[in-house]
């Protein structure tokens, strides 16, 4: 059952992204930035948490989920460490993903070459 919920919630978030790309002048880069920021804002006002509770990975795997992790970390940091925590909290909870993206991204780019387009 939780797999179906993850599928539907994740799928719907992707549909929103697709409609933004097809229906407006926004490019995929805009959508990436918009979704992460939206994830941060929606988490801050308490809207995203229930979506995560319901959709599980369907809400945390799409990019708003990255924003969700950042905002949650920043709020937790602020709660525990004041101003310093507000600065470090978000980056800390996103650190694993960012480090992985840098390391694997670099490695794959060094190892592989772009496929010639036919």
């Amino acid at each position, binding site marked *: 059952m939780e797999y179906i919920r993850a599928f539907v919630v*994740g799928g719907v978030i992707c549909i929103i992204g697709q409609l933004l790309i097809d229906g407006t002048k926004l490019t995929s880069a805009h959508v990436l930035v918009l979704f992460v920021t939206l994830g941060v804002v929606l988490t801050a006002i308490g809207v995203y948490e229930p979506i995560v509770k319901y959709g599980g990975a*369907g809400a945390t795997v799409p990019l708003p989920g990255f924003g969700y992790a950042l905002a949650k970390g920043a709020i937790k940091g602020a709660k525990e460490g004041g101003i310093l925590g507000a600065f470090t909290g978000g980056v800390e909870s996103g650190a694993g993903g960012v480090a992985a993206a840098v390391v694997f991204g670099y490695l794959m780019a060094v190892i592989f070459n772009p496929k010639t387009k036919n």
Partner: protein
Amino acid sequence: MSKREKLRKERDYDAYVKQKTPKPTYLKNVIWAFCVGGLICVLGQFITNVFENMNMSEKDVSTARTIILIFLGAFFTGIGVYDKLGKRAGAGSIVPITGFANSIVAPAMEFKREGYIFGIGAKMFILAGPVLVYGFGSSVLVGLIYLLINK
């Protein structure tokens, strides 16, 4: 050429462009985005469940899942599969975190010939950079606002 004639030509051209621009096939794109995006999330849920059964904390599970998905996104971009998928899946392959990895590897590979510093090192952040700027930036802002409200 008189002014009126020029205007008419411009209008004709605009109509011509409109007629020739391919209309996005909304329904087909939406179905593809839904299915591919949904399936990637199901994979994420599966990874989550595996780690939860290993009694990892919620935060560790989330970090581990993100790292694995980013590895997969980067790897499949490297071997050229992810971009092939992306042609059909659109946002279904862009919006999940694997798409974030894709947005790093694809330009980095493309600009490899410009060297390891200004090619790969710089261009890998051409899309990921803005995402991190706005993501980190807004999260710090949220933390500070939280402090202001709760003082």
